């Protein structure tokens, strides 16, 4: 991405999202939901990329932050009944920001143990935090517990989803490319050397968690108002892994690659699901030679992950050795 044009990109993207959102009633609702998922997954993957990719702190609990944002914003908007256009969007924005802030606080809590832990230990602790958030939600009757929580308002639209995705991309790209942000990459490349050069590694690690969690919380809010039903199990360990796979597939610390991977990995299961759908149609039951592939959707996904690690650990979309290259 060319950072001299970052502001142009942001404004252009926002204008484009606004234009498309004016015509979103013309879009088939199935594709609309898929496109929301794409936008939400882009926010999740890009924000996780700040923690995992740029700062090199392996986090396995990103879905937990998403859950905090989703539940917070849903609880806020559920307090309101039918509202006019401006009030609705205003409340929605406030709810999204509140969800993001609460998730950021959760990120601060997770970021603190990173002062002491590294590598796989950190991975397992973030995993533990994600699971604890899930168990707490399951035991909180106020938000429906294990039964789930319905969200009243379908306020997520094309503009909010992709507008906020553009904002996320903009903020994280400019943050990492600023003078301050070079510290994230220094922490990743060599923590001891960075510390010796006078970089406050602790502060950078916690900042990465807080900023990453904030955007994950916002993505959670978008998700809540798109799907309109939340269950704690929807934000489990597997979901966190899915976001990690997006970051890895795109190439850790490769902004464009991660966005492409998020789009691709949202569309791929849909494509395989369509193949699975063929199997259930009467008449063509066994006729389609690829019909059985539908059931192997997740097997393909996991094999892809293993093969990718064996052959292209730098990610699918990393072609040249940039100056931000990971050490190994």
């Amino acid at each position, binding site marked *: 991405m060319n950072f001299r044009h970052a502001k142009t990109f942001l404004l252009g993207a926002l204008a484009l999202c606004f234009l498309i959102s004016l015509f979103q009633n013309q879009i088939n609702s199935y594709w609309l939901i898929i496109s929301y998922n794409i936008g939400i997954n882009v926010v999740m993957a890009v924000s996780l990329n700040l923690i995992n990719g740029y700062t090199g702190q*392996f986090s396995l609990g990103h879905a937990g932050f998403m859950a905090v944002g989703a539940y917070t914003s849903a609880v806020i908007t559920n307090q309101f009944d039918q509202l006019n256009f401006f009030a609705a969007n205003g409340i929605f924005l406030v709810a999204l920001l509140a969800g993001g802030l609460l998730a950021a606080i959760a990120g601060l809590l997770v970021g603190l*143990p990173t002062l*002491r*832990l590294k*590598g*796989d*230990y950190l*991975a*397992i*602790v973030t*995993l*533990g*935090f994600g*699971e*604890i958030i899930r*168990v*707490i939600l*399951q*035991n909180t009757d106020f938000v429906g517990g294990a039964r789930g929580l319905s969200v009243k308002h379908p306020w997520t639209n094309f503009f909010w989803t992709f507008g906020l995705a553009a904002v996320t991309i903009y903020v994280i790209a400019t943050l990492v490319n600023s003078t301050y942000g070079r510290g994230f990459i220094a922490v990743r490349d060599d923590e*001891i050397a960075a510390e010796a050069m006078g970089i406050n590694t602790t502060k950078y690690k916690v900042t990465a968690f807080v900023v990453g969690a904030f955007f994950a919380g916002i993505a959670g809010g978008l998700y809540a108002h798109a799907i309109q039903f939340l269950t704690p199990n929807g934000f489990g*360990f597997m979901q966190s*892994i899915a976001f*990690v796979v997006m970051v*890895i597939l795109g190439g850790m610390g490769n902004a464009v690659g991660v966005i492409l991977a998020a789009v691709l990995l949202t569309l791929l299961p849909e494509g395989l699901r369509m193949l699975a759908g063929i199997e259930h149609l009467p008449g063509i039951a066994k006729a389609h030679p690829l019909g059985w592939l539908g*059931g*192997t959707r*997740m*097997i393909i*996904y*996991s*094999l892809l*992950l*293993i093969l990718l*690690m*064996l052959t292209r*650990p730098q990610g699918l979309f990393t072609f040249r050795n940039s100056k931000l290259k*990971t050490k*190994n």
Partner: protein
Amino acid sequence: MTEFLQQLINGLALGSILALIALGYTMVYGILRFINFAHGDVFMLGAFAGFYFAPEIAKMLPTPSILSGLVVMGISMAICAAIGIVIERLAYRPLRSRPKLTMLITAIGVSLFLEYTGQFVFGAAPKRFPQILPVFPITKLGGLSLNSNQLIVLGVTLFLLLALRFIVLKTKIGMAMRSLSFNPEAAALMGINTDVVISFTFALGSALAAAAGILFAANYPAIDPLMGILPGLKAFVAAVLGGIGNLSGAVLGGLIIGVTETLVSGYISSTYRDAIAFGILILILLIKPSGLLGKKEIEKV
């Protein structure tokens, strides 16, 4: 008091199953310094191997009996040992010189692969594990209702632990394992075939996980392809709690997690049970990151 003792015994039975799984994590970590995420799924495969072989064994031996149970367990352990070697050979060995994170992600991939292939091959619905061990309640000990299964779990675990201790401390390959965990390069220079030792470690860990799978399935007889996730994570926590890389630590950690979990679900609330292990993990890592029995590693530049 009786109730407390009862919970304690239940907890020890659960804890010793976790300890058997934790040993596999800790051995692999001790040698390769990486978390074998797929270990919990080997535990699941162990239970399924038992599920498919138990009816065959029942044709040859009187079932349920201790003997048939042990034969099923032996078969399952052999199968999982082979699976462990294959996983290491295909997925982990090519990555040995790469960053540890690459291996961790591959391990997650292997774990997902085993789970989803399991769902595809065995079916996602829970299956009833056949009764291979005889059950007779023993209610003699001052009102405590001891179940013979729990005694078998404790007995088998104790036997396997002693066997493992013998292998690691008294045999040549055990010495090679210890030297490898101490310093892999120096071990290789001394003429130790590291590939063989690592394969052996995976086989040993996977066999213990299979034994745990059979014992778990005999006690909680509904098995499904995702059954390995939570016990696997808890066993990992147990390994970290005891100090990863330390065999006695893994056993101690397993017992602590098992007992705490049983006490919490007995006295406080069973719905919080699954968060306990992670709560303990976070606390221990904040207070003593090297675990209860672990040695502190000094970081060198």
